[in-house]
């Protein structure tokens, strides 16, 4: 029997047994739908994490050095860190470590009250080098950023984040206005381009930048840093740079292992890889669940087919009697299984896309559809039908026509 005719016959059989066909189709569709949905959600999550991470750390060519051992957690603040990281450490890194492009010195403090005329807000304050914005890839929407002259002259100038602008200057141009921090007046000279939300969903736009020299000498009166950020010429060789910085700081701080370092050198690439690893594991679990669902679809196909084969023994007997070979019968049942599974796969993809869209909407992610993978999913469904249809089809092919036709 030709393939075209086998296919036509399979279609007719499936159409004339709508209930059985529906259950077979749903069995496969549910599995494929979960596979597609899980893969889409997983991919959307991964991409979103990457985006957020990039937003938080800027580009991936940076190493950051913070005071305290690696066990120290959280964002470093002037009020909580050990006073071990000095301005001179940053100068030494700039002068002695190869492959360094820019170095930024930072002093940060959180939950600081600031005032602009009658309004008060709570924000985080970052004393920074002029290089900071370039290292991070930040920019201003209006005004200008912190310049080398600002740092040089200990200028009392501020660049503010969008959240702070909204709070302090909702309906006016902030440029040239005064913000008072602990009674020290600063002139607003720029507003940062909004960064959006970081991991966890909190805003990254509630902050105030000023020259690190001003922060150190005119505001906080502290001569240690909370972070040194190093931008590399060649990010590919970050491991050597980390090693060189570590060696230099140990020497400067008089630390000889096994004494614990009083600083921590980290790089966003490593952190990113860690995040991605967690993410990948999560995706793998989701996909694993979906694969199991898909296999269950296969088992559904197999059981319904086995029932169908025993119900259709007489039909098989008739076909054999009028000339069908075993191969004809095998092929007929296999094609039926593959066809209904492929249809189930298509329905599953549609359901999966719908499910992923709803899930993405709820999670406030933009849905990601791997169209190539969806073609693969339909292929997988067909394969599942073939594999799980094989045993029932084999059984059908081996029905003894004499037994089957006995009245």
């Amino acid at each position, binding site marked *: *029997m030709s393939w075209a005719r086998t296919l036509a016959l399979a279609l007719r059989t499936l159409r004339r047994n709508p209930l059985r066909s529906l259950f077979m189709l749903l069995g496969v569709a549910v599995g494929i739908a979960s596979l597609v949905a899980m893969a889409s959600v997983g991919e959307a999550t991964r991409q979103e994490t990457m985006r957020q991470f990039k937003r938080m750390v800027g580009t991936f060519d940076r190493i950051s050095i913070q005071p305290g051992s690696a066990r120290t957690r959280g964002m470093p603040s002037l009020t909580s860190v050990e006073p071990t990281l000095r301005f001179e450490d940053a100068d030494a890194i700039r002068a002695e470590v190869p492959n360094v492009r820019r170095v930024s010195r930072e002093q940060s403090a959180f939950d600081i009250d600031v005032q602009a005329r009658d309004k008060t807000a709570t924000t985080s304050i970052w004393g920074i080098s002029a290089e900071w914005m370039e290292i991070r890839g930040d920019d201003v929407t209006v005004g200008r950023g912190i310049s080398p002259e600002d740092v040089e002259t200990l200028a009392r100038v501020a660049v503010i984040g969008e959240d702070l602008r909204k709070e302090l200057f909702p309906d006016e141009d902030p440029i040239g206005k005064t913000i008072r921090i602990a009674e020290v007046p600063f002139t607003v000279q720029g507003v940062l381009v909004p960064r959006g939300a970081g991991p966890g969903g909190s805003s990254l736009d509630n902050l105030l930048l000023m020259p690190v020299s001003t922060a150190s000498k005119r505001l906080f009166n502290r001569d240690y840093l909370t972070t040194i950020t190093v931008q590399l010429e060649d990010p590919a060789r970050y491991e050597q740079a980390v090693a060189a910085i570590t060696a230099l700081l140990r020497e400067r701080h008089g630390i000889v292992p096994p004494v614990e370092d009083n600083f921590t050198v980290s790089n966003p690439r490593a952190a990113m890889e860690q995040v991605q690893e967690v993410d990948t594991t999560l995706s793998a679990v989701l996909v694993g669940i979906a694969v199991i669902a898909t296999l269950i679809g296969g088992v559904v196909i197999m059981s319904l087919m086995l029932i169908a084969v025993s119900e259709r023994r007489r039909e098989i007997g008739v076909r054999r009697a009028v000339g069908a070979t075993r191969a004809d019968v095998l092929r007929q049942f296999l094609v039926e299984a593959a066809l209904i599974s492929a249809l189930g796969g298509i329905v599953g993809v549609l359901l999966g896309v719908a499910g992923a869209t709803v899930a993405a909407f709820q999670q406030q992610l933009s849905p990601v559809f791997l169209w190539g993978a969806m073609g693969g999913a339909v292929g997988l469904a067909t394969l599942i039908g073939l594999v799980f249809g094989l045993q029932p089809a084999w059984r059908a092919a081996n029905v003894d026509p004499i037994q089957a036709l006995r009245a």
Partner: protein
Amino acid sequence: MIELEHVVKTYQREDGTPVPALRDITCRIGAGEFVTIRGSSGSGKSSLLNILGCLDTPTSGAYRLGGEDVSRYTDQERSAVRARRIGFVFQAFNLLPRTTAVENVEVPALYSGGDVDRGKALALLKRVGLAERSNHFVTELSGGEQQRVAIARALMNSPPLLLADEPTGNLDSAVGDSIMELLTDLNREGLTIVLVTHDERVASYAARELLIRDGVLASDRAQPRRPSLHAATEGAAHVVG
């Protein structure tokens, strides 16, 4: 057309004990004959017919169909013989459910290697008197109508030989008679028919009767046809196709 020589069929029970169904059958059936095989239940009629129909192979002995020894054919080769050279009619009709009359008639054409000729299937339905019922599902047909569809199906690939196992067994006698008349007509148009029955009345339609008893041919005799049945169909058209 059919030559059986010392055909033996011995089944094997589950526990391994042999069940002799056919002991030593030797006979010939010529092209164009209408033969009944009559015997009581369990005498081996179906066993014999299954061998004639290439559904089963003899344990020993030879079966030649049109001169070829088909008793040693492989399963696949026997399928091809069934597809092109043999038509089957069963007691239980054995039409496919959820399938229309004409689709049932077409089934053998799927396995004969040629095209599926819907026109021929419709012509065959017309020949058995069911032109109006072509697109009915089989569940909408009476028993007699179903058996007519089955006969049309058996003729789809124009086989020279038709085998029928108790074709009237599930029908009341008036309907059974009409089926027998149809078969008689087909035989007069040249079709070779071998029909199994336990019923003397049915057997009387054929020109020759083989009596089988405990797996052995007990008698082989010619008998006069029932004259009243043939007057009307004398000189009938050839079987379609």
